[in-house]
């Protein structure tokens, strides 16, 4: 049930002079509205979410503006207050709101959520519509490898791409063996994402399969897989794994004989 008080506060975000261009927002009124919403605690949050409409319906620009404005402020609040906000927000994901509204809620958790909402977000990683929003929120929050590792075995298609890339970004190599197997997938995008993820993880076990993948691929994929090899070498060097890194560089110097790949030989020089 929409809360009338919340609706009045949200209405302060309308600009009667020129809403379209947001050319003259009234700072005083907007600040007072956000203060009023904050004073309402969790009800100020759930009340706003209840006013969100599906993307295709529209008419909730002011509500989205108010909710986002509050989310951005909440990042600067004391931890207890921030969590009141984020827990209330995450709680609405279990309610019967439109999918696009839930996507908006997840994107607000991306800017202000913490460890307290990662389990709630993880439940959306395999959702047909919201997996990318959930993945991006979890990546932004960080320390969320468990959620992605849990999703990995069931993730297919674009969800699998997203999950593998996320594990690379988080530099979590618990799933490295499984990801190495994707280097020979039928899906070119997945092969490239897997290669980059292994490079980001500085996976020592990826040296041989990654070089093989780069050697045997053609066109743009060869360019990207070779790039992943160089990235892996740099990351291994940073970890003190000089032997494995040298092996990559030496291999690239020995095998990139085409004049068009002279720059790769140069890039593989370690001196």
């Amino acid at each position: 049930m929409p809360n009338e008080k919340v609706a009045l506060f949200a209405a302060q975000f309308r600009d009667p002079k020129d809403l379209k261009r947001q050319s003259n927002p009234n700072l005083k009124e907007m600040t007072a509205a956000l203060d009023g919403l904050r004073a309402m605690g969790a009800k100020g949050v759930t009340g706003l979410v209840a006013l969100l409409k599906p993307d295709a319906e529209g008419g909730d620009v002011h509500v989205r503006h108010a909710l986002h404005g509050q989310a951005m402020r909440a990042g600067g609040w004391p931890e207890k207050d921030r969590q009141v906000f984020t827990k209330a927000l995450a709680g609405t994901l279990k309610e019967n709101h439109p999918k696009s509204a839930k996507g908006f809620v997840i994107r607000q958790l991306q800017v202000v959520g913490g460890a307290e909402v990662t389990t709630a977000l993880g439940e959306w990683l395999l959702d047909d519509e919201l997996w990318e929003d959930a993945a991006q929120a979890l990546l932004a929050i960080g320390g969320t490898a468990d959620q992605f590792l849990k999703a990995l075995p069931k993730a297919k298609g674009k969800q699998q791409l997203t999950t593998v890339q996320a594990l690379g970004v988080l530099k979590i190599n618990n799933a490295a063996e499984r990801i190495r197997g994707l280097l020979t997938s039928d899906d070119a995008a997945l092969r490239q994402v897997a290669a980059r993820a292994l490079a980001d993880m500085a996976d020592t076990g990826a040296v041989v399969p990654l070089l093989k993948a780069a050697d045997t691929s053609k066109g743009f994929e060869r360019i990207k897989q070779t790039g992943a090899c160089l990235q892996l070498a740099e990351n291994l060097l940073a970890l003190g794994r000089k032997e494995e890194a040298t092996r990559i560089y030496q291999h690239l110097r020995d095998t990139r004989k085409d004049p068009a790949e002279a720059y790769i030989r140069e890039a593989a020089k370690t001196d």
Partner: protein
Amino acid sequence: MTLKASSVSRRRFLKTSSATVVAAATCQIVPRHVVGGAGQTPPSETFGGALIGVGGRGPGTYNGMCRGLNVKQLALCDVKFVGRADNKKVYTDFRRVLERKDIDLIAIATPPHWHALISIAAAEAGKDVLCEKPMTRFIAEGRAVVNAFKRYNRVFQIGTFGRFDASRDRGNIITHKIMRSGLLKPCEGVHIKAGGLKVKQWSGDPGLLPQSVPGSLDWDFYCGPSPLKPYVRPRTGGTHRGYWDYEGGGLSDMAQHHFDPVQWTFGKDDTSPVEIEAHAPPPHPECTGMWGWVELKYADGLTFAMDSREWGDRYTRKKERGVSLNDLSPENRKKVEAMPDPAKLLSFAEAVKTRGQAGGHAEAAHRCATMLHLANIAIRVRRKIKYDPVKEEIIGDPEANRFVNPPTRAPWHP
């Protein structure tokens, strides 16, 4: 050399470009790698060129890349060429362009959310790049671009050229030397950019309902690393500037023009501000909007400020103040006067021919873009932020720091 904006209209450019592409297909171009050598200069001194992103800024960016070089245009690429692409001369997928071995130079004039990814891929493919400004959509991808061009020893030049003129001005050279000497501590210099940042003009339009995607546009590819949102026309075609998913409003777009030469003059090509504060209303989640002013302070005390003059209070904290030899002790003044002048900045053409570093190189462009991104982060979080220019992280504010390196949509990852 200052490159002036092209007076060639977009329609005329595309017409003549298509003709050039056809002509080029009929005569053999020897790619520069064929003859090898340190400079990889082809016998004909002719380079194969491609333009990725042919909209508004496309012609100007491409012509800027070609200035001083003999370039045959071999490819045009845009995600709005669906149904028109032949994958020989006209493309929708930049990856097919980059895998061509006869193309040496890439001009990038897509919306900014693609700049870093295409630049990096071009470097990985061994190409030199002239990339439209602003360089990036967020800070971390700028560092990834710098690393890529360093790794592959390729030439990068940002598509704004004011620093070339600035670096020839005697007064600017003296300021540059004073700042680079490190002898001016604290620095009381203040530079204020007041107005001209097109804040209202390039703020977004948040009230639109989803529309049908035009048949000629690959919308998923257009969104690329950014979130896949429902299509509305203003998210494309120049007005993309008003959406956080693609750019940072007039501030990102215009301020790289203004601050790039200023950054050179004040010797800040290798560092970033450490304290940033803004006066702005609560931000909209999708669209860039209004703001009043932003103040950015460097570790040595130098202050840059942006005063929009389009909303809220004016910037009154400090007044414009230059830096002069009179700010130094007599002893330090002599030291600065004894310093050699900075090396001449190389144009893109000179850098390509000599394999040197272009004047608007990746690190400098990244540092300038960082300044703009930090300003926008301060506008969005509306609290003072502190930045570590070495680690390239916002200090003590994890929520604000999320804007330094936001996640990208797979498979795109800088």
